[in-house]
């Protein structure tokens, strides 16, 4: 994936979330803005036979994986045209046929699941690997340590990606994790690990690609820690606890501005081209919103369907 495609993918997530945030029916959301480079960089390392799982912060991962923004928006707004018929929402968004096995909104809850998906894909010889993006908030959970252990023992084709935005809602990582870095957790299990600047999409892409190659080769799991920033509150229902200065410092690391600047510096992006790309992204988001709004709401009868 070249730099222009990476930039467009990040812009698409940002514009999508801005459009969603303005919508009166947006409801309870966790936004990926600020953390676009993690999702986009990791997805650049994945192929069509791979599967991606994510935490409940799923909008960035799902769009980066290439899901149609219209059906994603429909799912988030509770419409029947969503891939989960509007029954999963953001917390449980999934479209496995498109390589997005799905989000799971319990912190750490998708980790053991991802190990199981990896086991099944290897036993069924599907040829793909599994990537699982989780927040640093999951690093203290037993599920991560159990997953690291079994994935290493069984050499599962699993790329674990810690999207480290530094906060479990209001609790800073320093107060939630004894290890200095999330990547240190992989070492006792003999799992190959790397730490990158999660606001540098090129660094994420390159590290993810190298670790994915290791996993594809059958050498077992790998662990990528991405130091990132979230630009908004934990969720639309949560109070912000960071100072204005801290928020400004976070926003100053914007992965979109950073990539655009380096592309301009190297003559790869004309001054007016970024505005054009931003307009395209906003148009695509508006079109996704129109599709969702034109879609019928999920039928009430769906509460009885697909239960057992």
């Amino acid at each position, binding site marked *: 994936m070249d730099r222009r495609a990476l930039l467009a993918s990040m812009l698409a997530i940002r514009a999508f979330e801005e459009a969603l945030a303005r919508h009166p029916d947006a409801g309870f959301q966790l936004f990926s803005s600020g953390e676009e480079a993690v999702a986009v960089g990791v997805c650049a390392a994945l192929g069509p036979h791979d599967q991606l799982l994510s935490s409940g912060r799923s909008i960035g991962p799902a769009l980066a994986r290439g899901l149609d923004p219209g059906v994603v928006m429909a799912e988030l707004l509770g419409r029947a045209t969503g*891939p989960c018929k509007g*029954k999963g929402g953001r917390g449980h968004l999934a479209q496995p*046929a498109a390589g997005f096995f799905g989000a799971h909104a319990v912190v750490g809850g998708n980790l053991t699941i991802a190990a199981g998906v990896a086991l099944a894909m290897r036993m069924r010889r599907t040829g793909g690997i599994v990537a699982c993006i989780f927040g640093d908030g999951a690093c203290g959970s037993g599920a991560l340590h159990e997953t690291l252990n079994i994935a290493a023992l069984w050499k599962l084709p699993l790329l674990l990606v810690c999207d480290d935005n530094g906060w479990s809602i209001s609790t800073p990582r320093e107060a939630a994790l004894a290890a200095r870095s999330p990547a240190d957790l992989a070492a006792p299990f003999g799992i190959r690990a790397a730490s990158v600047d999660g606001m540098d999409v090129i660094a994420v892409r390159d590290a993810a690609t190298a670790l994915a190659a290791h996993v594809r080769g059958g050498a077992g799991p790998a662990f990528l820690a991405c130091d990132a920033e979230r630009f908004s509150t934990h969720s639309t229902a949560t109070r912000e606890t960071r100072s204005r200065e801290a928020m400004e410092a976070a926003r100053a690391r914007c992965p979109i501005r950073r990539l655009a600047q380096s592309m301009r510096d190297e003559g790869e992006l004309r001054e007016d081209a970024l505005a054009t790309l931003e307009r395209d992204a906003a148009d695509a988001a508006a079109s996704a919103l129109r599709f969702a709004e034109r879609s019928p709401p999920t039928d009430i009868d769906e509460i009885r369907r697909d239960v057992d």
Partner: protein
Amino acid sequence: MSTERVAKVFFAEAIARALGEAMARDPRVVILGQDVGRFGGAYREFAGLHARFGDERVRDMPVAEASMVGVGVGAAAAGLRPLVSITYMDFVMLGLDPLVNYGAKLRYKTGGQLTAPVVVKCTAGAKGQGVAHSQSLESWLAGVAGLKVVAPSTPADAYGLMVAALADGGPVVYVDHKRLFPTAGELADAPAPVPIGRAIVRRPGRDVTIATHSYMCRVADAAADRLAADGISCEIVDLRTLWPLDVATVAASVARTGALVTLEEGQLACGIGSEVAFRVREEVGRMRVVRLGAARAPVSGNPRLEAATLPRPDDVAAAVRRLLDAKADER
């Protein structure tokens, strides 16, 4: 008259046979859990399967139930048909997040895109192992939308419900019992699966219906023998599946007898018996009813305390006598 040949088998053998046949038929069936490999399972219910199917399909796991269940549920979602063995039902608590928050909801939350055809087998019941190794928690799980719960009491049902559970499309919790493993019973040469959601009249009778499951079927039977000596005739309905519950079979029995005793080894509060009693009452209207279950106390490993905590045949017989002495709806 059936000409089918039958053999006497132990409960554990029936489970191993169902699993062996399913694994031979379907390469997607795998076994995950603690001591399921060469050791053959805590009760030898996996005996011979590792030798036959190897490390790849019979996988010992670390004693870490969250990953046992999570890996099983995830593998099921991605196309395998795993059986996850949780040695004692008490430990299923450590794996409830992937089972309840993910597996039970997967078909629903993905709008039918994914399913989790996994069987979580766990061993309930008290046999001298103390407060955290003796519980019967099936009512908890029966209360979760998206889970099915089965609890066989005979080797034939242990076989037939295992076959059905492995073929089912959603998570099935298969509850066996420490005190049932040493029991034997008949199993046909070509046994049929036992459909999930179908109770059975285990002992026909006229005067009272005892609705129960798992090891308590044997306690009910012992009580029924004592009562028969006094001319009281008990009909025992073995629920076999706790969700979806076969209310019709129990209700048909109670419509004949007019009296219902529910009997379980788990707690009475919010128990299987409460659910059975209420739903049967909705079907048949007036009836006499009493619930029996464990005392509201932990189940000690001290044998005197354990026995006093759980329903015994004499307790069941006494409850039946009191019930039959009472007028309808007095209880």
